[in-house]
């Protein structure tokens, strides 16, 4: 079954490769309603990103028992996403969006540890996102008389100012919900952590990127960055709008980073990290400069790779050990060495460390902020990056380093090879993007042209150019390797005999002898220092859940009040109906 769906997943990629480039199909249903696919450089990029991600996840699914319906739904989801990114009008886009919502809903409900509340959260927020999208669509239609993107784009500047703002806010809200901006992220963490393990990778890596695609579509394509600049004016070197979005993104990123550090569940940490990373993208997406768009694109790519890698890795470990908490895992490094190296590459990139691709994307983001002179936003981004080292370390320490916290962890074997294949591919991609950071500029430049922005200078694959300095990825990675090998050989040759200590209890422990019952894994201790820092404590003790809980309670009460009409006193009901009709009558008379 796996191989069938593997081939099936390959088909759209081949299709896109064969017929792609300039795909324009349209199907007229009525005079007004036309379903059309129209390929843009932006859509192509996102299409390949999502399809290849699906392919890799399907490879990983081989060793996991998966039902036909699961595969079918996943395939449907991939097709829906293809429809979204290739859509030429809002009807196709919305159909794709709805199929994506529902198929992912059913996929999430297939998880063993999902509860009704999380499912409800997911579907409610998805519906809210869809409603705000449909509201925007209808408003746009009422002014442009068409759902076609190009028509809306052409008639956008003729709309009144408040309608423009309403459209931007409605679309932004819809896509922010999908991407999980702070405040609208209420569904994200529960859903990501409770979905089937491998599907979490799709949710985090691909589905959240549909929100980013939507934002690009609206800001870059429908509204246009020039129009944004005209509408909201300029602050420093960027748009006012970008400045607001920048702060939204940075605050999202900082809060989510600190929340991530204190999580005990592996997938919850990754979910918060996902929110934080998307915060970076949102911080630069509205700046309206070439580097802003390039930074957002670059980080979209790198974050997709990293999150696929990390979620597949964690899914493999959870499948192998049956544990998903840092306090229950630990000490797997010599049991599952390949997985460890893969996760290590993932977190080095996640932290944005130089030799790998993570730095290239971070550099682009920072360049965007420098280019617009958004200094405090840049400082915020750097700060959140510094804080993210802690959760990166927690991720690798909690699972692989330290001591095994239970007996069955001591006899684990390496995870199945089907989990490792996609990880190795993704890790190689990260190394490649680190060595050739300039290569991706070639993909970004057509998109910049599409958004009628200046292109980014490109000299060679190894060099990343920017307005305020450049760096040579190929040189850095080769210098790193050379120096590393040199020092390693130097240390190797030194006579002092390194005695390999195989007994894990032989540690200096103040003269005491730790036993099997001694708690030696520091998984619990992570993040406790943070609670004592005033600023961080203020972030950590706040949560969006009381607000939404209260909203839910109030809604229930209101609904209860309304429903009393039907099964309360019959006379009251009659009076209300009478009043209603008389009101209608008076309105009609007037």
């Amino acid at each position, binding site marked *: 079954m796996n191989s069938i769906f593997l081939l099936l997943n390959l088909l759209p990629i081949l299709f896109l490769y064969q017929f792609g480039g300039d795909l324009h199909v349209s199907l007229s249903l009525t005079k007004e309603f036309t379903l059309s696919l129209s390929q843009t450089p932006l859509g192509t990029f996102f299409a390949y990103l999502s399809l290849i991600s699906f392919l890799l996840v399907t490879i990983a699914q081989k060793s996991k028992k998966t039902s036909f319906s699961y595969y079918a739904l996943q395939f449907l989801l991939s097709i829906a996403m293809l429809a979204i990114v290739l859509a030429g009008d809002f009807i196709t886009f919305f159909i794709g969006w709805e199929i994506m919502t529902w198929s992912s809903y059913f996929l999430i409900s297939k998880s063993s540890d999902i509860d009704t509340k999380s499912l409800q959260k997911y579907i409610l927020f998805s519906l809210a996102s869809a409603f705000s999208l449909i509201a925007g669509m209808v408003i746009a239609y009422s002014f442009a008389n068409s759902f076609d993107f190009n028509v809306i784009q052409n008639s956008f500047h003729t709309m009144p100012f408040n309608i423009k703002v309403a459209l931007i806010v409605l679309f932004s809200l819809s896509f922010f919900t999908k991407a999980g901006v702070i405040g609208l992220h209420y569904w994200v963490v529960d859903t990501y952590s409770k979905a089937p393990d491998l599907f979490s990778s799709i949710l985090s890596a691909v589905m959240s990127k549909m929100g980013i695609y939507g934002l690009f579509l609206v800001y870059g394509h429908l509204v246009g960055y020039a129009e944004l600049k005209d509408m909201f004016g300029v602050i420093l070197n960027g748009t006012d709008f970008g400045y607001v979005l920048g702060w939204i993104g940075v605050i999202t990123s900082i809060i989510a980073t600190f929340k991530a550090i204190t999580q005990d569940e592996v997938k919850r940490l990754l979910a918060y990290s996902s929110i934080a990373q998307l915060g970076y993208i949102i911080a630069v997406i509205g700046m309206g400069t070439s580097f802003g768009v390039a930074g957002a694109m670059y980080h979209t790519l790198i974050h997709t790779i990293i999150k696929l890698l990390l979620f597949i890795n964690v899914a493999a470990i959870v499948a192998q050990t049956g544990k998903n908490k840092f306090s229950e895992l630990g000490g797997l490094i010599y049991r599952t060495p390949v997985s460890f190296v893969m996760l290590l590459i993932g977190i080095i990139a996640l932290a944005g*460390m130089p030799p790998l691709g993570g730095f290239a994307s971070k550099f682009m983001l920072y360049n965007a902020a420098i280019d617009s002179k958004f200094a405090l936003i840049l400082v915020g981004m750097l700060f959140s990056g510094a804080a993210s080292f802690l959760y990166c370390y927690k991720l690798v320490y909690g699972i692989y380093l330290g001591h095994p916290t239970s007996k069955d962890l001591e006899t684990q074997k390496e995870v199945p090879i089907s989990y490792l294949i996609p990880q190795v591919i993704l890790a190689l991609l990260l190394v490649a993007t680190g060595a050739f950071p300039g290569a991706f500029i070639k993909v970004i430049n057509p998109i910049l042209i599409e958004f009628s922005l200046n292109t980014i200078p490109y000299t060679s694959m190894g060099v990343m150019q920017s307005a305020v*300095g450049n760096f040579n990825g190929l040189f850095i990675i080769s210098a790193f390797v050379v120096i*590393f090998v040199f020092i390693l050989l130097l240390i190797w040759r030194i*006579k002092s005999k*390194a005695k390999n200590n195989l007994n894990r209890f032989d540690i200096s422990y103040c003269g005491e002898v730790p036993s099997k019952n001694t708690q030696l894994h520091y998984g619990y201790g992570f993040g406790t220092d943070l609670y004592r820092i005033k600023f961080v404590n203020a972030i950590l003790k706040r949560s969006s859940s009381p607000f939404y809980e209260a909203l839910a309670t109030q809604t229930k009460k209101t609904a209860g009040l309304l429903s009393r009409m039907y099964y309360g006193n019959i006379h009251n009901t009659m009076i209300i109906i009478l009043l209603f009709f008389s009101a209608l009558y008076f309105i009609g008379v007037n």
Partner: protein
Amino acid sequence: MIFQIILLIMLAYVVGFIYMGLYRNITARIQGRYGPTVYQTFYDSIKLFSKKNSVSYGWMFYLGPVIMATGAVLTLILVPVFSDSDFLRSVTTQGNLFLLLYLMVLGPLGNALAVGTGGNPFGVMGVVRGLTRLIGLELPFYIAVVGLIIASNSSDIVHIIDLQKTTGLNILVHPFLFIAAMISMVGFFGASPFDIPGAPQEVYSGPRTEFSGKFLALLMSQGSIFAFAKLVLIIDLFLGGADSLWMLVIKTFAIFITIIFIGIVYGRYKVEQAVDFLMKIPTLIGVIGLVRIIWFG
């Protein structure tokens, strides 16, 4: 080029060790002691390299100090040492200031993996404290660096040095940024009051708890190379670089002695106190400098 790199590493090694020795000696003199010779850290390092055996906990433990040393050396060769010469210019132009900011953290993070592999809870405790402190420590430094990058509109250090010839030294033009960066630098040097991660009275030696023999020696060596690199970075950014060996020594020593004098008079902050402090006063000073550059520069 290879020859130049080796020359630079040896220079950093010697100067770094003498500075570390001076650190101990001057500290001792201030405390009313005679103190060790300036070569004491060098003796320590050779002694540790010549230990008969050193304990290891597997390959990741072995690689951790190597990664840390690699980070230090890479930082060193990417920082322009001499301003008006072609010394390693072809190498330093390959990187930029953002790269250096991240490279400076690469080593400690690599070593943290080795500490985690060692399995000593005290070591990990020290690492976590170090990373928590880093949150606060990086903030003023980032502000200073971002301010300089925006002021000179370049993240190329050579450009920042050259610009100071026309506009005047950054320490005079942007004093607020310099103060913020220096407070961070005190912490980067592991001096009081920000020396909690490896405090022997509290976490048993912190990240270095399990390291012995040649691994500890490697950590010490990279520490002195790294210290030199950090000093050179500071003088490049704020003191207009150095055009000769003498200027280099004088300027780095001036910065170094300032750090010693700040470090010697303070007690040790707890990690949350350190972060609280760093998020308030130095950050505020830095933000004043930054706002001055953006809106009034």
